[in-house]
């Protein structure tokens, strides 16, 4: 195994341009799970990003929040103005693993790991986050809701690093994060939901109910149109269009759809006049 520890982004991009098979390492909370048993991965090349100071920034500027690729959950929980400006980020970060994971895990790692059950991705997507990718050839920005192309598939090329996440700063009158897991801490979501409303419209994002975290555009349209909803059952036709959950070791498809309808109904009844 070879580890490269570039000190600057420039060096890191040069490295992966020449070795696109090299694996970037941030907090390693995904990469090192059961590490001694992952023998095949011990032979690979790794590019450790942890020395690159320019990736650590968290900045509020020009009407947006910029999270550097090394920003952790713990950084966001404790950053000033975060609770007021981006409460969904704080709410989701506090539900990731436990403190030991929050202290190490990065938002960029959560995005690139591409788990359909991720907790960081749904709230970022509900805030219209944009993924900033860089390679030696230049910079590219991909809206997070277009970043995933299939289960564990993303638009990131192997010679690209996520360098930052940009999130527009908007006033939201609805901002809800829900995670239903086997227990309150240290659990992977059976259903995750992020709901936000601002001048830009409704965003409803679901996790663990499709091959990728995804926006629920049929639900969003129903909310925009003010379609009357008299109970969780009225949401099922839209849910059927938006998500394709599976039965797996954590839950069943039927349970996930039922829970999703009830969460949506409970969360929106107080805030949407069309919900009665």
């Amino acid at each position, binding site marked *: *195994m*070879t*580890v490269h*520890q570039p000190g600057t982004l420039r060096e890191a991009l040069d490295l992966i341009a020449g070795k696109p098979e090299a694996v970037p*390492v941030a*907090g*390693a*909370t995904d990469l*090192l*799970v*059961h*590490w*001694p048993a992952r023998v095949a991965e*011990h032979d690979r090349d*790794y590019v*450790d990003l*942890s020395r690159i100071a320019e990736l650590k920034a968290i900045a509020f500027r020009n009407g947006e929040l910029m999270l550097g690729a090394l920003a952790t959950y*713990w950084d966001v*929980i404790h950053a000033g103005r975060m609770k007021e400006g981006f409460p969904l980020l704080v709410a989701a970060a*506090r539900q990731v*693993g*436990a*403190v*030991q*994971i929050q*202290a*190490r895990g990065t938002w960029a790692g959560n995005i690139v790991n591409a788990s359909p059950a991720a907790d960081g991705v749904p709230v970022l997507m509900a805030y219209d986050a944009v993924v900033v990718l860089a390679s030696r050839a230049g910079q590219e920005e991909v809206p997070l809701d277009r970043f995933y192309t299939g289960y564990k598939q993303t638009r990131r090329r192997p010679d690209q690093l996520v360098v930052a996440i940009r999130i527009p700063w908007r006033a939201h009158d609805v901002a809800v994060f829900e995670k239903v897991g086997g227990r*309150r*801490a*240290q659990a992977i979501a059976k259903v995750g939901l992020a709901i936000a409303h601002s001048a830009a419209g409704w965003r409803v994002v679901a996790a663990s109910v499709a091959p990728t975290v995804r926006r629920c555009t049929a639900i969003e349209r129903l909310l925009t149109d003010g379609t009357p909803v008299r109970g969780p059952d009225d949401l099922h036709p839209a849910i059927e269009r938006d998500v394709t959950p599976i039965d797996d070791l954590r839950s069943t498809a039927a349970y996930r759809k039922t829970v999703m309808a009830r969460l949506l109904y409970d969360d929106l009844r107080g805030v949407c006049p069309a919900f009665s």
Partner: protein
Amino acid sequence: MITLAFTLNGAPATVEIDPADRLLDVLRERLGLTGTKEGCGEGECGACTVWLDGLPVNSCLVPAYQVRGARVHTVESLDPAALEPLLVHGATQCGACTPGVAMTACWIVGHPEILASHSLRELLAGNLCRCTGYDGIVAGVQAALDAGARA
């Protein structure tokens, strides 16, 4: 092999490591600090908790090469007297989880301001215990906090 220099329990340490070593392996096998335990090897149980630059982390998930130049504290650095309230309140039975629990507990006691935004149970959620049912752990940490506030 690569040479790793960092600050361990307040003193400079230099050790030869394999790039594939986890911090947990370096502490236990190369430096002989076996107080840090491996429970699950997947970040769930917290038995391997150490402080990295002052924050509790799972040493089973930290690539050793990442601690170059960093400050690491292990359970060996704790003052035994500080653990007295944990013993008195039944925070330990079989002891498998105890080194990790002690690291998280002493971190909380050292940073009581964090309780303004977090509950003890939320902060301790990354340390699994099969024996105590947690009430003893929470009571022990609370007693340690109370003792700290009186001191």
